[in-house]
């Protein structure tokens, strides 16, 4: 094993040299730690790297250049809404008044942030048609847990304790069934209908006095709007269950469909999808949750409240006994929420409608262009994303969707989401978003069509891709079988104590 690639980097630990670094923090006075009992003290120092700042900076700049990112190119990763991340938002979140505010600061000195959070809740309620919103959940999955725990509390307060099941379609995000399990429910998986939509008859057959809730993604993970959603929601409510909407695909429907108006009882927002907060290489996000009237009493604490004089305050712990409690420390991922607020304000009502319209238009255009070379399993207009399939290509050439995805890398594109949803053979879920130009969409379509042709003329070129990335395909089997999850260095340096 070697670090031979021209761009690969040694680890921090290999760069470390005893004696490098320093100059950041004043030395403490001698004896600063004498009052700490010996048995509570650390006996051998942690073997952290010793580096000077220039080396640290080069390390991280060089590493960053091994990444593909929205700022470097087209990132049509379905289900993830990789839209442009506005730079104003990064500036705003770093304003000293926002960045340096302690989360336990008294309300009197936190009025700016509290007002921003209050207005953001109102905006999300307006967009979703929900009655109230909590900003506390740190991510979409935590929003799901919040919603399902509120549903549990709702049934319990009605003495309705026999509801043990949550119904989830087989096309759902994995977080839905995982959330149901975390909240102590049993997941019942419902197969999708042939048209890609929810199988309403199968749902109705599974609904009963044991059903606590259904979790629906609308538009679905196939990028299709659930045309029979009204019928489904009626059946859910007739059975005494509640309806959760996974809002991951909200980018398709702003100004067109409000889940709260349609009859959903609770939903989460992924602000790192719809509202442009950056994905950060995996996080952070924020997963606010909107609720209808029935679930307002159960919202997590603390809520942001407006007082009669127009000022704002945080609810005190325990102030609202019906609350499900808290899902995390403090009020939420406020720094992320500042960015989402800026995005919503920059767009206003007309801008957000245009976002969804353009996202849907771009997806349909790309879908149309690709239909000459790829299978398009569901023959109807899509919303903000669509599934294409390489099933025919695989049958004719042996080239798989995975290979096509890797070949895209050679042409400077991030691959789409592949093999999700699980119900489409050789599927690729493509989401262009509204911030990509028609030139980009055309160039991407030309490339995918060319790769489809290449699969017939030179399949080896596709199956051995990528050829231009910093590394080739990885040995994932060994990584899982013999996990190496940390650097192990032998501490060889002395640690002089300043005191």
């Amino acid at each position, binding site marked *: 094993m070697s670090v031979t690639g021209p761009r*690969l980097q040694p680890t921090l630990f290999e760069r470390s040299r005893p004696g490098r670094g320093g100059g950041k923090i004043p030395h403490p006075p001698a004896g*600063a730690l004498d009052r700490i009992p010996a048995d509570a003290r650390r006996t051998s120092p942690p073997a952290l790297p010793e580096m000077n700042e220039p080396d640290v900076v080069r390390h991280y700049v060089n590493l960053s*250049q091994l990444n593909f990112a929205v700022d470097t190119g087209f990132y049509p990763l379905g289900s993830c809404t990789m839209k442009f991340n506005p730079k104003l938002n990064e500036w705003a979140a770093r304003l*000293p008044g926002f960045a340096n505010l302690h989360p336990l600061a008294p309300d009197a000195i936190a009025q700016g942030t509290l007002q921003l959070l209050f207005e953001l809740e109102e905006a999300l309620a307006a967009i979703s048609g929900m009655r109230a919103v909590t900003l506390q959940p740190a991510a979409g999955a935590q929003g799901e847990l919040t919603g399902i725990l509120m549903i549990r509390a709702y049934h319990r307060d009605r003495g309705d304790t026999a509801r043990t099941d949550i119904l989830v379609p087989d096309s759902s995000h994995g977080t839905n069934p995982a959330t149901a399990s975390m909240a102590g429910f049993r997941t019942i998986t419902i197969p999708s209908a042939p048209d890609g939509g929810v199988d309403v008859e199968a749902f109705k057959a599974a609904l009963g006095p044991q059903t606590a809730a259904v979790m629906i993604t609308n538009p679905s993970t196939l990028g299709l709007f659930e045309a029979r959603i009204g019928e489904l929601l009626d059946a859910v409510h007739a059975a005494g269950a509640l309806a959760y909407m996974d809002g991951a695909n909200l980018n398709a429907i702003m100004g067109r469909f409000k889940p709260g108006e349609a009859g959903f009882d609770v939903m989460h927002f992924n602000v790192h999808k719809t509202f442009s907060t950056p994905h*950060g290489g995996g996080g952070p996000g924020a997963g606010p949750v909107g609720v209808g009237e029935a679930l307002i009493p159960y919202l997590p604490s603390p809520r942001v409240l407006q007082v009669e004089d127009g000022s704002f305050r945080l609810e005190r712990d325990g102030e609202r006994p019906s609350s499900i*409690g808290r899902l995390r420390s403090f009020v939420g991922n406020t720094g992320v929420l500042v960015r989402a607020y800026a995005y919503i304000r920059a767009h206003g009502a007309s801008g957000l409608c245009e976002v969804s319209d353009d996202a849907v238009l771009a997806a349909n255009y790309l879908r149309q262009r690709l239909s000459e070379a790829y299978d398009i399993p569901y023959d109807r207009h899509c919303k903000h994303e669509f599934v294409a399939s390489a099933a025919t290509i695989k049958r004719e050439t042996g080239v798989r969707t995975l290979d096509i995805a890797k070949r895209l890398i050679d042409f400077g594109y991030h691959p789409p989401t592949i093999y999700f949803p699980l119900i489409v053979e050789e599927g690729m879920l493509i989401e262009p978003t509204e911030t990509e130009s028609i030139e980009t969409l055309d160039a991407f379509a030309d490339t995918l069509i060319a790769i489809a042709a290449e699969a017939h003329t030179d399949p080896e070129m596709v199956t051995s891709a990528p050829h231009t990335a910093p590394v080739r395909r990885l040995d994932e089997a060994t990584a899982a079988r013999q996990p190496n999850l940390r650097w192990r260095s032998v501490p060889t340096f002395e640690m002089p104590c300043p005191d």
Partner: protein
Amino acid sequence: MPYGPHTASDRERMLAALGLTSVDELFDDIPSAMRASPLDLPPPQPELELAARLDALSRRNRTDLASFLGAGVYRHWSPPAVDQLLLRGEWYTAYTPYQPEVSQGTLQSIYEYESLLAELVDLDVVSASHYDGAAATAEAALMTCRATRRERVLISRGVHPHYRGTVATYFEGGLELQEIPLVADGDAAGTTDLAALERLLADRDRPVAGVIAAQPDFLGLLEPMPRIAELAHAAGALFVAVVEPVSLAVLAPPGAYGADIAAGEGQPLGIAPQYGGPYLGILASTDALVRQIPGRLVGMTTDLDGQRAFVMTMRAREQDIRRDKAASNICTNQALLALAASIYLATIGPHGLRDVAALGASRAADLERALAAAGAPRLHPGPYLNEFAVRVPDAPAVHARLLDRGVLAGLVLADAEPADLSLRDGLLVCATEVTTAAEIDRFAAALATELASVGSGAR
């Protein structure tokens, strides 16, 4: 739309290719009865005006006070290199590294994060991050139940009240959480009551999966962690240590006293307070628990040419693979904050981190002396690192009046722990390396003035 590229003719071209005349036709599948009412939001704001609005809102917060508030979130010097590197788009506009060939930067940085934190906590497995210290603690509690197939967890009242509340919420699905009281008085006042812990562990009909305690505890006091670990293990339970990472430069790490799992808040590692987040949930475990730890893990491997490379691994624990059988529902995590913590640790170095911890301890000792002289002695006698509680008569009112004098006098403990009457007159205060002697003087002088006026009945 401020960031969109499409001109009217672009849209016409796309519609024409689809054989449509209006984008409305793409929404025909929404039943007419279900179409949205008009969106009731303010009009779009041009960037210049929006920037002014955001700046004005930020200025309505006051962050210019002499602050002694910690209670789980601490002010530290973060070298500007940290934030400047975070602002590279290649880091913050990338997604989860599902395509390792074009994500080696993120993947190596996570591997390095796992390695750095493993050194700090002295445990072998570190997950790629959780939402915050509270959520990481809740995941740790759930881990103990999965690993032992038991359903009861004991958590010390010395653990941050928000963390206890979060674990309780996560346990709503049917697990049992019980609190271990703190010692009421004497030398060990404010730390976990070991006799009570032994009694709770002795109930053999309800075996305990895990015991959770914090070092330092919420009141800043040092806990007898080795003894708590022994008691937990003797009852067949796992031990979860909730730790503050900067303190681990000088305090014994969880691995040294037998903790099976470490959880904690990574915010002190160079991350701004930001009124609650985004922060960094630290979660680490022994090798024995590697199949139980939730969240992403990155491992070292090779590519087809034998080059060293990094990849997400052991994914059979995760929700997108295992669905309802997954170890957790976590998907989005706090990767960018893990990167911030790594850059902070690399920049500040091992000696720097020790200086941060020791200088904070030194400033805190100065603060203790100054406040005692002003009439506010410590509430507990035991050792602390850089945070402690002081006794102040009528603490909420004094705290409010000190705010008017430009001093944020820590946390009113009666607000945080209303059920604990022993804390009724308490303020929880902390100092770090950024606390100055002038700030300490200002606090002590203002407090002395307030206490004199309380004593004289002037107020």
